[in-house]
C-alpha cells in the first residue's frame, strides 16, 4: 500500500531501537523532496566537518565532477555527495573514529583513548603514501583527529553522531551494508583494542603500536586496496618486527613487562629468524634477534640462560618453542598392566567399571594404558593395591623393550628405584631367572621392595651398592639395564626446578658419573652369554653431553658396539654436534621428545659386548706416553675427539702418537699413519714403554696386533741400542724426524756397527 504520511510523526533519533527502525514516509519523502527553503541546514559538528572535508576534496579532485553524472546525483548535491569510493574512505575514517569512540566509551579509559589516538596518528602516517590515489583522506584523517580531540567532552554525543552519520550515509549504501561494514571495523578494532587493553601497563607503547598498526594497516589494505606494488612494500615496512633500541631495552629492564607482549614478541622474533633474509631489519644482525629471543624465552618460560642456550643448540627455533611449551604441561598419565597377575583387557574393564577413562597407549606397547581422567585416584584403586598395574611413564617402557630380557636370564638393573623397570623386566621374564635390582640410594630402595612385592615378583634380589662397584660384587650377567642418574632436562614438566637449577658444572658432573657407570655396566656383562651380552643405557635427559658423548666414550673404551634398539619410532641420535664427532653407529640410538612424541624426554642406546677382554693395557700405555711426552699431552685429548678413528681401542694409541708427528711440520694424514705399521714407529713405541711389545700384542685379539708383534721383534736389537737416546728424548719434547731420514740413519748405524765388528 504505502506508508502513510503523518506530518505529526516525529522521527526518533538516538542510539535506540526505534531510531533504527524504518523511518516513516515523511522522512523517506523528505530525502527526495529537498526543500530549498530549508536553506542552510543546521548541521551538527560532525556534519560541519564532513562538509569541510568535502569542500577540500572537491578542490583536489578533478574526477569528481566527471563521476557525478554517472552516479546520477543532482548538481545541487555535488558538494556533499561524493562518489561512493571516496565516500567510503571518508566514512570509514569517520566510522573508525566512531567505532573507536564507541569502544572508548564502553571502556571509558583515557589511556586507551590516548593510545588509540597515537595509534590513529601512527596509522595515518604510514598510510598516507598509499592513499595518494584516494586523495583528501589525509585531511579526513586529520579532521578525525580533531574529532577525537573535540569529542573528549562530547563522548555522550558520539552515539548521536553515529546515528546522524547513518542518516546521511543512507544515500550511498543501504543501511544494512553500512552496518555490516561498521561491524567489521568494530570487530577489528575491538580485537586490536583488546590487545591494547592488555598493553596498558606496558611502556613500550611505540613498538607495540607500530606492530599493531602494522596489523591494522594490513587488514585495512587487504580489505580496501587494490593490489599495488607500493602498497605491499609499505605493508612490509610497517608489519615488520622491530628490535627495540638500546634505550627501549633499558626501559624494559627497569619496568616489568607484560607476559602476553613478551609471548607476542617471541612469536614475531621466531618468525623473522625463520625467514631472515626476507623479514630482517636493515642494519640489525642475526645475533641481535637471537639474543633478544633468548632473553625473552628466559623471562617467559622462567629458564636460566644456560639451559636456554643448550636448548637452542639442540633444536631449530620452531621446535624450540614447541619444546618449551610442551614442558609447561604434564604428559598424560600412563599405566602398565602387570601381566603376571592380569591381562590388559581385564584390567581395562575393571578400571572402566570404577570410573576411569582410559585407552591403550599405542601400537608400540601391548601392556600400556593411557588414563585421560578418572573419578577415583588411580594410585589407590583396589586393582592397584592388588598389583594389577603400575603407574609408569610411557618413556620408561622403552628401555625395557629395547633390553628385551629372555626367560631364565640373569639381569642387572643398576639404577632401579622406584622399581618400574625392574618389575617390567620381571614380567617379561615371567618370574624366571634372576634379577638384581640395585640402587645407590637406600631410601628409594624401599619403594623398589614395595613395588616388587606388590606386583608379585619373586625372582629379584635387591641390594644397595654404588653402581660403580658392580663388576667386583658380581659379574657375568646376561643383560644390564642402566638408567643413569642425569640432569633431568627431559622431565622438566615433572620437575620445573630443573629450569633454573642446572648449569654447566651439573651437566659435566652427571656426564662423568654416567661414563663411570656405563663402563661398570659393560664390565658386568658376560659377552659369551648364549642369549645376551647386551647393555641398555638410557637417561631422561636430552643433552648431548649426557647421552651420545657417554655412549661414544664407552665405544672407545670397551669392546662394545651399538645395535638397533628395536624401537621403531623416535629420533635418531646425533653423530655430529657442535664440536663433537661421534661414531656413525650412534645413529642407532634413539631420542624422544615431549613435543614430538608426547612422552618425557628420553634417550635409549643398546650396546652389545662382543668380547670380554677389557682393553685396559693400551690405556695404560697411553698414560705412560702422555707422561713422557709432555708436549703431546695437551693436544691429545681434543685430537681424539676431532680425528676420525676406529672404535677399536688400539687406535687410541696411534692417536696418542699422532700428535708426536705434528710438531714435525709434516702434513697430518691420519689414514696413512693409521694404516702404516712401519717398524721404526713401532719400535719407538716399544722403546717408550720399556716393556716388550709382546705383552701388548697378546692382549689385543686382532690381526693387527700380530702384525705389530712381528715388527717390534725385529727391531728389538735396535731398540736396545737406542734406549739411551730415547731416555734423553723423553725428557725433552720429541722432535720427530721424517721416517725416511730415520730409516737411513738406522741403516747407517747398522752398517757402521757391522764395519766395526768386521
Amino acid at each position, binding site marked *: 500500500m504505502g506508508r502513510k504520511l503523518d506530518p505529526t510523526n516525529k522521527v526518533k533519533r538516538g542510539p535506540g531501537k526505534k531510531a533504527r527502525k524504518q523511518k516513516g514516509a515523511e522522512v523517506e519523502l523528505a530525502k527526495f523532496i529537498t526543500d530549498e527553503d530549508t536553506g542552510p541546514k543546521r548541521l551538527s559538528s560532525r556534519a560541519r566537518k564532513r562538509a569541510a572535508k568535502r569542500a577540500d576534496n572537491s578542490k583536489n579532485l578533478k574526477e569528481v565532477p566527471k563521476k557525478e553524472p554517472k552516479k546520477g546525483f543532482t548538481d545541487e548535491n555535488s558538494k556533499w555527495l561524493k562518489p561512493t569510493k571516496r565516500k567510503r574512505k571518508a566514512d570509514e575514517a569517520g566510522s573508525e573514529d566512531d567505532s573507536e569512540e564507541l569502544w572508548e566509551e564502553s571502556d571509558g579509559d583515557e589511556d586507551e583513548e590516548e593510545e588509540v589516538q597515537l595509534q590513529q596518528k601512527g596509522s595515518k602516517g604510514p598510510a598516507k603514501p598509499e592513499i595518494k590515489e584516494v586523495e583528501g583522506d589525509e585531511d579526513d584523517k586529520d579532521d578525525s583527529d580533531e574529532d577525537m580531540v573535540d569529542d573528549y567532552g562530547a563522548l555522550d554525543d558520539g552515539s548521536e553522531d553515529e546515528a546522524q552519520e547513518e542518516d546521511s550515509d543512507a544515500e550511498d549504501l543501504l543501511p544494512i551494508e553500512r552496518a555490516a561494514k561498521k561491524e567489521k571495523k568494530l570487530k577489528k578494532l575491538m580485537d586490536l583494542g583488546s590487545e591494547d587493553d592488555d598493553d596498558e601497563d606496558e611502556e613500550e607503547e611505540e613498538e607495540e603500536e607500530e606492530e599493531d598498526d602494522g596489523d591494522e594497516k594490513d587488514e585495512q589494505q587487504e580489505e580496501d586496496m587494490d593490489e599495488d606494488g607500493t602498497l605491499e612494500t609499505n605493508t612490509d615496512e610497517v608489519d615488520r618486527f622491530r628490535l627495540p633500541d638500546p634505550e627501549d631495552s633499558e626501559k624494559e629492564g627497569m619496568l616489568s613487562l607484560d607476559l602476553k607482549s613478551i609471548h607476542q614478541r617471541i612469536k614475531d622474533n621466531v618468525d623473522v629468524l625463520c625467514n631472515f633474509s626476507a623479514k630482517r631489519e636493515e642494519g640489525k644482525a642475526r645475533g641481535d634477534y637471537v639474543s633478544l629471543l633468548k632473553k625473552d624465552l628466559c623471562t617467559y618460560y622462567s629458564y636460566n640462560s644456560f639451559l636456554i642456550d643448550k636448548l637452542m643448540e639442540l633444536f631449530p627455533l620452531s621446535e624450540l618453542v614447541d619444546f618449551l611449551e610442551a614442558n609447561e604441561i604434564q604428559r598424560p598419565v600412563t599405566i602398565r598392566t602387570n601381566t603376571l597377575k592380569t591381562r590388559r583387557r581385564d584390567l581395562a574393564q575393571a578400571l572402566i567399571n570404577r570410573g576411569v577413562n582410559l585407552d591403550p597407549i599405542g601400537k608400540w606397547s601391548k601392556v600400556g594404558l593411557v588414563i585421560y581422567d578418572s573419578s577415583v585416584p588411580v594410585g589407590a584403586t*583396589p586393582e592397584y*593395591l592388588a598389583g594389577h598395574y603400575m603407574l609408569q611413564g610411557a618413556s620408561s617402557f622403552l628401555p625395557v623393550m629395547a633390553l628385551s630380557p629372555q626367560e631364565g636370564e640373569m639381569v642387572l638393573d643398576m639404577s632401579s628405584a622406584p622399581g618400574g623397570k625392574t618389575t617390567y623386566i620381571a614380567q617379561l621374564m615371567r618370574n624366571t631367572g634372576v634379577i638384581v635390582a640395585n640402587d645407590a640410594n637406600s631410601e628409594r630402595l624401599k619403594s623398589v621392595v614395595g613395588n616388587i612385592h606388590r606386583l608379585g615378583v619373586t625372582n629379584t634380589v635387591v641390594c644397595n651398592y654404588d653402581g660403580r662397584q658392580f663388576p667386583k660384587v*658380581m659379574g657375568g650377567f646376561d643383560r644390564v639395564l642402566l638408567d643413569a642418574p642425569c640432569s633431568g632436562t627431559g622431565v622438566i614438566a615433572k620437575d620445573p626446578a630443573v629450569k633454573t637449577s642446572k648449569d654447566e658444572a651439573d651437566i659435566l658432573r652427571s656426564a662423568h658419573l654416567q661414563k663411570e657407570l656405563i663402563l661398570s655396566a659393560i664390565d658386568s656383562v658376560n659377552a659369551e652369554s648364549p642369549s645376551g651380552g647386551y647393555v641398555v643405557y638410557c637417561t631422561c635427559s636430552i643433552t648431548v653431553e649426557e647421552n651420545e658423548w657417554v655412549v661414544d666414550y664407552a665405544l672407545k673404551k670397551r669392546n662394545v658396539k651399538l645395535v638397533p634398539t628395536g624401537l621403531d619410532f623416535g629420533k635418531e641420535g646425533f653423530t655430529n654436534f657442535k664440536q663433537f664427532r661421534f661414531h656413525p653407529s650412534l645413529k642407532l640410538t634413539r631420542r624422544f621428545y615431549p613435543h614430538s612424541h608426547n612422552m618425557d624426554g628420553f634417550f635409549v642406546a643398546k650396546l652389545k659386548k662382543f668380547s670380554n677382554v677389557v682393553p685396559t693395557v693400551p690405556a695404560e700405555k697411553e698414560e705412560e706416553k702422555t707422561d713422557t711426552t709432555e708436549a703431546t699431552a695437551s693436544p691429545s685429548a681434543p685430537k681424539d675427539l676431532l680425528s676420525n678413528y676406529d672404535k677399536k681401542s688400539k687406535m687410541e694409541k696411534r692417536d696418542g702418537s699422532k700428535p708426536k708427528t705434528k710438531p714435525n711440520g709434516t702434513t697430518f694424514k691420519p689414514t696413512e699413519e693409521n694404516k702404516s705399521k712401519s717398524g721404526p714407529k713401532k719400535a719407538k713405541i716399544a722403546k717408550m714403554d720399556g716393556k716388550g711389545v709382546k705383552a701388548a700384542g697378546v692382549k689385543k685379539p686382532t690381526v693387527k696386533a700380530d702384525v705389530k708383534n712381528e715388527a717390534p721383534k725385529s727391531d728389538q736389537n735396535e731398540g736396545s741400542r737406542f734406549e739411551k737416546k730415547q731416555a734423553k728424548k723423553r725428557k725433552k719434547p720429541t722432535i720427530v724426524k721424517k721416517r725416511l731420514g730415520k730409516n737411513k740413519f738406522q741403516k747407517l748405524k747398522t752398517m757402521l756397527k757391522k764395519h766395526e765388528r768386521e
Partner: protein
Amino acid sequence: MRPLTEEETKAMFEKLSKYIGENIKLLVDRPDGTYCFRLHHDRVYYMSEKILKLATNFSRDKLISVGTCFGKFTKTKKFRLHITALDFLAPYAKFKVWVKPGAEQSFLYGNHVLKSGLGRITENTMQYQGVVVYSMADVPLGFGVAAKTTQECRRVDPLTIVVFHQADVGEFIRNEDTLT
C-alpha cells in the same frame, strides 16, 4: 643371611598353617625348583635356591631383600606375617571370606570386617581361624582371623565384627617403610 633355626621354623610354620594348613609342603617343593626360607635382618625371605646362590655374593649390610619377604620375627621372637606373603597364601588358603564392594574400602583402610560387609564365607570356619579376605571379584585383599564361626555369623547383628583385620593390600601405600 642364614637358614632358620628349629624354633624359628616351628613358629613360622605354625603361623602359616593357620592360613594354609598342611599345604606348606607345596610351598617348599615346587615343580619349578626347590624353594627355601632364609632369615636376614630378622625377616624371613622365601626364595628359590638359584637366587639363594647368587644372593650370597652380596654383603649383609648391602643386601636389602631377596625373593619374597613373608614376615618378620619380633623382638620377643614371635612371628608376624606380612601382607607381602599374600600371593603365596591366597592360592592355598583353606578358609576364605568374601567382602562386599561397599566394605572393601573400609577393609583396605585397616578396619575389621563387620557382618554388614560380609559377602560369603567358607563353611565350617572355626572361631579364630586364619582366613584370607577376597573381594567379590576374587581379588585377594588381605588376611585376617575369623571372629565368629560360620554358624554364628549367620545369627549375629550387622554391626558385629566377623573378621579381625591382620593385613591388607592397602598397607603397600600406608606402611611402605615397614616393608624393609
